[in-house]
């Protein structure tokens, strides 16, 4: 199914509004043709000095048609636009829904500015698909068929001219222009996406760019990119204008033919002179709704590009989560035991295997620390438990269940996670804490803030985008507070206190251990102190476990851990 078809399918949810819009469009179109036909006939008739009642009937018809046209046009616009914007809203939400399971893999492939450009810009440009591509040709066809049918009663020749004109303006010329349009083919959208991506990136890196005095260079780069974008836009607009004027010219020529042939027929005696004015008026009016057809190819192209760009992301094969049989959607509310059994794992696009082969047991209620050099695969184990990544071989068990059969949300429901980088949302501290549990009371949250030594924060303190106004240490403590407030019996902590000073770290660890007393806990740590209370310490290097045991055992072993500890002490 092509991307555009998917959009159409989504669109048809708003069936009712669409049908109403088409009906009203037809009424508006046909009454406008009727109006001008009647007034042309009226004047001709008047020239022949008819009975007065005929005139009264005609003028009332003219007026009535005028009212009908205005009313129907209003209704058509209202319904078609309402349908359009509901469709757009549905599209955005659908896109988000489809995107959600692809996170975080999607970020390996697309930059967030690019995604934003797609969901805002491309969806926005799809509004033209319904308004200018989908339903106007239907309305147009209905109006033309009726008009040509009507005209054929007076003159077959003029009916044929109108038919030819119809074919020219709605099919032949748009087709010719769509060939021209292929050249511009989506470059505008592409340029827009690129520009959006670059601007977003410059804004994110603003501080460093400024300090490295690279802002000017970046700015010039952006400007030249904007220049290309504007030129593409200009090219497209000129093409649009050209096509519109050309189509307009053709409709003039059709009226011209109607007039010339009509005059000839009148002279010939095959057409009554009284109808000539009426037919000329019809030909001048009936093409009015055909004018937008000039830009039809541009919009259809634009819609195709936009929908392709949207669905490219969500259908991208590289980033699809692998389909498995999820049979467990809920896990019991008790501390779990975890086991890795002969797992192997490589990051996508990575040149080396992160974990060649590893087995590890974490009994329920145990406290385990993982230490090792950066890049040794510590955080990867956490991601595998969380199903953020998937093993290539081997199994990860949650109690007796292979996690392949357990849904991600069941696992997340039971875990309290602090990652190395934690996201905070634009809003207040309260908003960010309520993520953990929407039912939380202010005093509960205040108590937790105090326990992580953030009592100076009020719940109403503003948090800016990405938590930019918080220091590294504040972000970590806030993330811990959020984890403390969350339900669950498995703690996964990835260097949770690396930005904190030793004093604060000690007191916060105490808080965590108090609360996690019965729970299973896995801590990735960069510091070796404070690990005495762990049940087991796993030492990793290049994706392999090289030592494990309690603090005491490892120190007595005088191996790798002991050396790390010595190094750490020598640094103090």
């Amino acid at each position: 199914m092509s991307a555009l078809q998917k959009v159409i399918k989504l669109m048809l949810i708003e069936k009712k509004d669409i049908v109403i819009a088409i009906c009203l469009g037809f009424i508006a179109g046909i009454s406008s043709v009727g109006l001008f036909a009647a007034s042309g006939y009226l004047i001709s008739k008047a020239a022949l000095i008819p009975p007065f009642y005929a005139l009264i009937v005609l003028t009332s018809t003219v007026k009535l048609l005028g009212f009908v046209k205005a009313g129907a046009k209003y209704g058509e616009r209202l319904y078609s636009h309402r349908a359009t914007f509901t469709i757009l809203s549905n599209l955005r939400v659908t896109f988000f829904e489809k995107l959600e399971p692809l996170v975080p893999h999607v970020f390996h492939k697309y930059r967030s500015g690019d995604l934003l450009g797609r969901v805002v810009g491309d969806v926005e440009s799809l509004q033209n698909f319904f308004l200018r591509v989908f339903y106007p040709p239907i309305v147009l066809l209905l109006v033309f068929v009726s008009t040509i049918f009507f005209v054929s009663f007076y003159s077959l020749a003029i009916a044929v001219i109108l038919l030819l004109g119809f074919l020219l303006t709605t099919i032949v010329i748009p087709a010719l222009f769509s060939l021209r349009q292929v050249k511009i083919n989506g470059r505008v959208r592409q340029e827009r996406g690129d520009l959006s991506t670059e601007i977003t990136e410059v804004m994110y890196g603003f501080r460093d760019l400024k300090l490295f005095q690279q802002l000017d260079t970046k700015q010039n780069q952006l400007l030249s990119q904007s220049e290309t974008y504007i030129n593409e836009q200009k090219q497209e607009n000129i093409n649009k204008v050209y096509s519109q004027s050309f189509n307009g010219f053709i409709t003039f020529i059709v009226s011209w033919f109607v007039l010339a042939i009509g005059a000839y027929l009148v002279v010939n005696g095959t057409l009554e002179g009284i109808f000539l004015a009426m037919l000329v008026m019809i030909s001048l009016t009936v093409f009015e709704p055909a004018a937008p057809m000039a830009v039809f190819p541009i919009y259809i192209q634009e819609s195709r590009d936009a929908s392709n760009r949207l669905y490219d992301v969500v259908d991208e094969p590289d980033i699809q989560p692998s389909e498995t049989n999820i049979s467990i959607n809920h896990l019991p509310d008790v501390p779990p035991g975890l086991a890795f059994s002969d797992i192997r794992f490589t990051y996508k696009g990575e040149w080396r295997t992160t974990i060649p082969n590893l087995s590890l047991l974490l009994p329920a209620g145990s406290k385990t620390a993982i230490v090792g050099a950066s890049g040794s695969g510590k955080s990867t184990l956490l991601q595998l438990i969380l199903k953020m990544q998937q093993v290539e071989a081997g199994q990860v068990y949650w109690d007796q269940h292979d996690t392949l059969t357990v849904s991600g949300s069941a696992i997340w429901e039971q875990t309290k996670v602090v990652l190395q980088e934690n996201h905070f949302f634009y809003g207040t501290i309260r908003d960010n804490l309520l993520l953990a549990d929407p039912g939380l009371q202010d005093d509960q949250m205040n108590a937790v803030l105090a326990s992580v030594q953030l009592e100076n924060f009020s719940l109403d303190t503003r948090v800016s985008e990405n938590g930019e106004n918080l220091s590294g240490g504040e972000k970590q403590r806030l993330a811990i507070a959020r984890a403390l407030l969350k339900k669950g019996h498995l703690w996964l902590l990835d260097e949770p206190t690396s930005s904190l000073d030793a004093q604060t770290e000690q007191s916060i660890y105490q808080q965590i251990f108090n609360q996690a007393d019965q729970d299973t806990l896995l801590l990735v740590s960069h510091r070796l102190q404070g690990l005495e209370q762990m049940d087991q310490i796993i030492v990793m290097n290049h994706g392999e476990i090289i030592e494990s045991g309690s603090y005491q055992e490892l120190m007595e072993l005088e191996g790798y851990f002991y050396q790390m500890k010595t190094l750490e002490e020598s640094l103090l």
Partner: protein
Amino acid sequence: MQNIKKTVWRHKRRIYFLVGLTLLLGLAIIVQAFLMTRIVDGVFLKNLSFSAVTSPILALFIILLIRALTDYMSKRIGVSIASDVKRDVRKDLLTKYAQQPVQLAEKGQTGKKVSMLLDGVDEMDSFYSQFIPQVMQSTFVPLLVMIVIFTQHINSGIILLVSAPFIPIFMIVIGIQTQKKSEEKLEKLASFSGAFLDTLQGLVTLKLFGRTKKQKDELEQSSLGFRDTTMDILKVAFTQSFALELISMISIGIVALELAIQLIIYESISFFTAFVILILVPEFFTSLKELGTTFHNGRSSMGAAKKVLQEFDEQDDSIQWGKNEMAQEEVPPTIQLNHLSFTYPTSDFKLHNMDATFLPKQKIAIVGASGSGKTTLLHLLAGMITPDEGAINVQQQDLVTFTEASWLNQLSYISQHPYIFSGTIGENIAMGTTAAVDEKAIREAAEKAGIAPLIESLENQYQTKIGEAGRGLSSGEKQRVSIARAFLKKPTIVLLDEPTRGLDLATEKILQQSIEQLNETATVITVAHRLHTIKTADQILFLENGQLQAVGTHSTLFDTLPAYREMVTIQRGGKQA
């Protein structure tokens, strides 16, 4: 740049040309009506032969061609003016954003700014490309048509004269509403963009907390809210065209009736006059109505333009740098903090009255609990913010009397979150300096920063692409890239923010060696947590709640300051007393 009219008048010549074209178009419309009538009248009433009307038929063809051409030309001019205006405005806006001080730049949502630079500027398009040419057409064409109608038949002229003013009145009344609404729309779109970007980046977090459903609902709400504001604008626009349609229909009806009566009852006009008027009257109203349709576009486009132009008015106290060039010497300058104080405008936090002197090539450690003001002090030193009171003196002069460039040239800042832009690793390292660098220099810098072995193990080595915000690099690796930048730049002052955050011991050792190497030629000012850094520092600045408690070496502070001693003891693994 603040006035939208001024942006138009920058293109005066093209505007005059546009006026000329429009007049030509008006004439073509009138001639067309006369020719058509002559033909119909000729064959219908005057019973002329076909050969008698061939010349007006041919003339009509030429007139129609002229009409199409002038229409094309005037629209094209509109498009080219729009492109030029967009280019200028985007450039100015970008310059404006770029000049903002860092503090302010980080205040707003990025999505909002992106949407202003893209959508805001793009929306200005239709004002210039459609609205202005249409205003011309709707001014001159009806005027010409009306004059001709008056010469033909005064009664019809009077009917038009009475009904026509309703149209601009309607437009003005409704236009004012549309503009307000469209500002609202842009606001909604911007906030939708902001919310979406934020949600996208926080999706992992949302998933972990099982909150994607709620966020989806919020997004849906925000999206529907956007739809409703759009519909509100459109409804106004539709009502307006409904009213215009009615006015024009009624007028055309009255004119037609009046003409018929004159024809039949008074026999005071000819069919010729009646038919000319009948063709011209719709042209009169079509021009006005088309203004109506473009009017709402033009208005909302004007709303967007106003919003964009408003950005230029926004007050920002950008840092006022001086004009003096700092002498670029091999030896680092002496830096003095002179009664330095700073308060954030939005919080109670205050940095109090600091005094200190940093001699060339000294190693300075800034120490204190988190939230004590260490990073603020570093920002002050980098010139990202300016002190409220007191000053930072460099070479015995206030820092702000120098140019920004000459200060930044001396400086490398290694932050907690080094920014890695998407490009190759090599390009990211080369970003450290504004000077041109060759691959060899980049290699050397990477070597010194201890990241060379990692890079060289990659397939594409220095040409390896790294993604937005450095996805694919661990934080330790990012920091090493950042240090490689510093080596490339060879600064005389290095500002370092928590250099060893979250790194394993081996990497940390590499970094410490690197920093020490930098220290051989530069003053290194570090926000430090690591005792190794602190112990070897020439001076330690110990901060507590924004107060500088003491300045000294490790041994003096250890002996004299209990708070400091306590901190060190904990670091050593001991428990708090």
